[in-house]
């Protein structure tokens, strides 16, 4: 019993001292997944995010004088753990990064009650772009519907799509189904035939049935919405069935270097749309190398650092940092709260100049968010695997948002109705 009291005392003391040192800090937790089935993709993303925040703390003393406490809470990509982490951190957090569609689904309805912004860069529910309905959710700089539109745009630039067939290989999960409404709409407009081929969660590593179907169907293009083990599975199957790699394209989560490195030169020509690019010559990469990695404050390694996902992590943290800066400038205080950060995230203006100032040259396209537009629709580049790494093969593609604006509003309204009472931000003008 005595021992237990001492233990409890030590705990209380630690909590108290931790509280004291928090005074000049901004608590921005990250629901990381360095363990579990998707750890291979999670680790580079988490390392990139953490390293950029460490850089800001080391080089600039944080943001606006306040250090960033970028604590990770491990979820292993499990929804149950994710909710546990959310509950644990929400008390003092200024932002939450849920990192999985499942966790986003759980956390999204709670945000109106808890009033904490969710930052889901490049993932989550596409209608979240309607900032009027989804006051607290941000999927900057681009959503899945943007990705679908940009991929089709790129394919169209290679020749008319009229009469062509596109196989849509996707994970049979909310994430994989997300772009279907927009792809169907585009198919009707452009006259191509879309045939969705679902891959069940249990079939991710063994897609022989799906690829047999693709071989029989002989589509002109295969577009993939894959995640985790599904990407490597699809790429190896494509190589095995001798599908022409240049006609095989993926969303940004299907462009992980390690997945392609397995197939190496055989996968040459595979493409992935992306709103981030690993520009090793960018000043920020050099700063991270000298001030974070060389000092032993990072968990990353050299190969990983050159990958697309690591640089995506950096871009995500840079977006969050810009949101924090905007809020600090508006409210004149370093220690902003969750509601002020929401304002900040609604007023990010990533112009070319600002990107250069931040040292992110060529790593992220310019974009601007507003109260009604929580995505920013930055657009992206088509990246191609050259056998060793990803290279840019297109100019900046910008999505034609007007094409699915109405759809987004309709789906957002559906969501709000299903979750009534759902407060809407009436202060916003229409998108």
């Amino acid at each position: 019993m005595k021992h237990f009291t001492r233990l409890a005392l030590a705990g209380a003391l630690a909590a108290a001292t931790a509280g004291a040192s928090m005074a000049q800090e901004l608590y921005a937790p990250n629901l990381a997944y360095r363990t579990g089935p998707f750890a291979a993709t999670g680790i580079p993303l988490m390392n990139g995010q953490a390293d950029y925040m460490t850089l800001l703390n080391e080089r600039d003393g944080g943001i606006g004088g306040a250090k960033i406490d970028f604590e990770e809470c491990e979820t292993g990509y499990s929804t149950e753990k994710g909710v546990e982490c959310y509950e644990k951190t929400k008390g003092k957090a200024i932002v939450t990064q849920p990192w999985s569609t499942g966790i986003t689904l759980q956390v999204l309805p709670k945000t109106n009650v808890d009033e904490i912004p969710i930052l889901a860069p490049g993932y989550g529910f596409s209608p979240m772009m309607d900032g009027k309905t989804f006051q607290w959710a941000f999927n900057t700089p681009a959503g899945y519907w943007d990705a679908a539109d940009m991929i089709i745009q790129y394919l169209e630039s290679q020749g008319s799509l009229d009469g062509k067939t596109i196989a849509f290989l996707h994970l049979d999960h909310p994430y994989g189904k997300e772009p279907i409404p927009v792809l169907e709409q585009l198919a009707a407009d452009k006259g191509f035939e879309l045939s969705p081929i679902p891959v069940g969660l249990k079939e991710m590593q063994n897609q022989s049935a799906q690829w047999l179907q693709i071989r029989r169907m002989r589509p002109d293009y295969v577009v993939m919405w894959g995640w985790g083990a599904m990407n490597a599975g699809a790429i190896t199957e494509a190589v095995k069935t001798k599908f022409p790699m240049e006609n095989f394209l993926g969303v940004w989560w299907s462009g992980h270097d390690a997945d392609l490195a397995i197939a190496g030169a055989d996968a040459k020509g595979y493409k992935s749309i992306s709103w981030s690019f690993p520009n090793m010559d960018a000043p920020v990469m050099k700063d991270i190398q000298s001030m974070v990695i060389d000092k032993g404050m990072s968990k990353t390694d050299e190969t990983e650092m050159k990958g697309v996902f690591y640089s995506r992590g950096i871009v995500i943290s840079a977006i969050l940092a810009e949101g924090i800066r905007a809020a600090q400038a508006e409210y004149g205080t370093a220690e902003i709260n969750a509601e002020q950060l929401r304002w900040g995230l609604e007023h990010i203006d990533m112009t070319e100049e600002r990107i250069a100032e931040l040292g992110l040259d060529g790593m992220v396209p310019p974009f601007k968010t507003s109260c009604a537009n929580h995505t920013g629709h930055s657009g992206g580049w088509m990246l191609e695997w050259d056998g060793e790494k990803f290279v840019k093969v297109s100019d900046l593609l910008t999505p034609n948002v007007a094409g699915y604006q109405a759809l987004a509003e309709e789906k957002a309204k559906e969501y709000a109705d299903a979750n009534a009472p759902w407060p809407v931000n009436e202060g916003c003008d229409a998108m």
Partner: protein
Amino acid sequence: MLYRTAGQFKTSYEADQALFPVKQDAFLLGFIMVLAWVIFPLTASEFTFQTLLIPILIYSLAALGLNILTGYAGQLSLGTAAFMGVGAYACYKMITIMPWMNPIIAILLSGVFSAGVGVAFGIPSLRIKGFYLAIATLAAQFFLVWLFEKWSWLYNDNASGAIQVPNLDIFGLYVSGPQADSIVQYYLVLFIVCLLTWVCINLTRGNLGRTWKATRDMDIAAELIGINLMKSKLTAFAISSYVVGVAGALFVFMWRGAAEPNLFDIPLSFRILFIAIIGGLGSILGNYLGAILIVGLPVVLNLVPEALGIPVSSSMVEHLNFMIVGGLIVFFLIVEPHGLAQLWRLLREKLILWPFPY
């Protein structure tokens, strides 16, 4: 000393067969009830409600349902999660078709649907036993999860394929959905779990329970003494699936708030089977002890390094957690292969004699 039974005389058969032949047991239960109904709700934080109290109760209820089938009637089932899914989807459909329906009634009714499905998949148990039956229930598991994915009517043709719990209220008090307070949800879950546990205790001590136990211990002998095996096995399937279905509805409506079909896949079935096995097959108390070990302990362990001020990365804690919980499971099963409930039973026997053992 604490458990001294001296002076507690039984003067009738009824007193001898009572649920609590020893007074201290009743006191202990009363104490736990006070904890659950008064102390915990008054002191718990939002975090405790959402990660410890509510999930432990719901998992205990699901394990209780499985225990009736596997522990009492001896029919091994690997389809628990799918039956939970039936309950959850049934509740979702009832609530969306009839929004005026009282959520408590909807939750209690949703078990009826899973009971029906459970009986249908229980029919093979009349011919096959043991591992073969386990495979048959595995078929239910695969089939039902596939159905949740493909039958879009079940999730109202929602584009994401997931079900989202709406805000539901009873007389203006929100009980589910994001607007609901944790404490309200906790009391509702606690009420339903207590109610069903009470029913199950009485069922397993009564005629039906004895029939199940006879079927479990030797079905040929049971048949010879005049037990109708079909009735015995199918009632076990029906009641077990009912409880599991209600647990599934609570799981989604009172705790998760949203569910994708693959939530009800095999890992959940195994998790509940582990709770039942580690807690102790053929016991009611065991389900609660098992759920505390499997569901509650990892959450508590995650908090330890931070509370002590030890700087360990969150992913490291997760790895350690796996090792510690895994080690404990092996330890408990070696110390007492019949589960935690049996461990408590032995401890209680010792306590009655203590401090003067023979």
